[in-house]
């Protein structure tokens, strides 16, 4: 039973299109994240939600909009896709980041987005 699952695993689309990636976790965690791994393999945080509330929003274009319908789901919608959006997008979850949070995240398998 997969702890953090993302769909789709692969996504190939044309520039200018709008696409979504869905993420679900069954670990009972309060906090969820989206990370982007670019062509240089650098894993960079994009967003974080805690109990459906946005708590981290890095310098990400407005074309990227996360949505958290409940604390077990965090979806990523991307408008007007550009070539530079091609990357692997990882969803992750963790326990609530209180004092003493050790940084352990549980990642999904990743969604490889290719923009042509």
């Amino acid at each position, binding site marked *: 039973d997969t702890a*953090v699952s993302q769909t789709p695993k692969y996504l190939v689309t044309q520039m200018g299109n709008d696409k979504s990636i869905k993420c679900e976790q069954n670990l009972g965690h309060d906090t969820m994240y989206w*990370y982007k791994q670019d062509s*240089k*393999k*650098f*894993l*960079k*945080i994009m967003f*974080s939600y805690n109990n459906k509330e946005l708590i*981290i929003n890095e310098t990400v274009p407005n074309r990227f909009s996360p949505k958290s319908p409940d604390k077990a789901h965090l979806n990523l919608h991307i408008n007007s896709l550009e070539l530079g959006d091609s990357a692997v997008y*990882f969803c*992750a979850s963790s326990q609530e*980041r209180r004092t003493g*949070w*050790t*940084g*352990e*995240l*549980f*990642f*999904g*398998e*990743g969604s490889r987005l290719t923009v042509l």
Partner: protein
Amino acid sequence: DQQVKQNSPSLSVQEGRISILNCDYTNSMFDYFLWYKKYPAEGPTFLISISSIKDKNEDGRFTVFLNKSAKHLSLHIVPSQPGDSAVYFCAATTDKLIFGTGTRLQVFP
């Protein structure tokens, strides 16, 4: 500005020997340091962590060393096994988890 750096993109080690992966950081406010392991087509998985108030943490074959004065940490794997072949990411926390660029470890027989 990359706060967590792994300067060696790859490392090749013979089975049974020690693997040493290195990581440097710039932010003295980090409170935890972690190592994650990643196989192809999978997400990173947590391996081991260390608090900024400690200098060593050991878990089986894996030991992490922290040198705060040098802003350096390392992961030692002893003995190395072929199944350890993966990409290893160093990471550090403040209010968020920041990753290095990874080191690809290959353990050969």
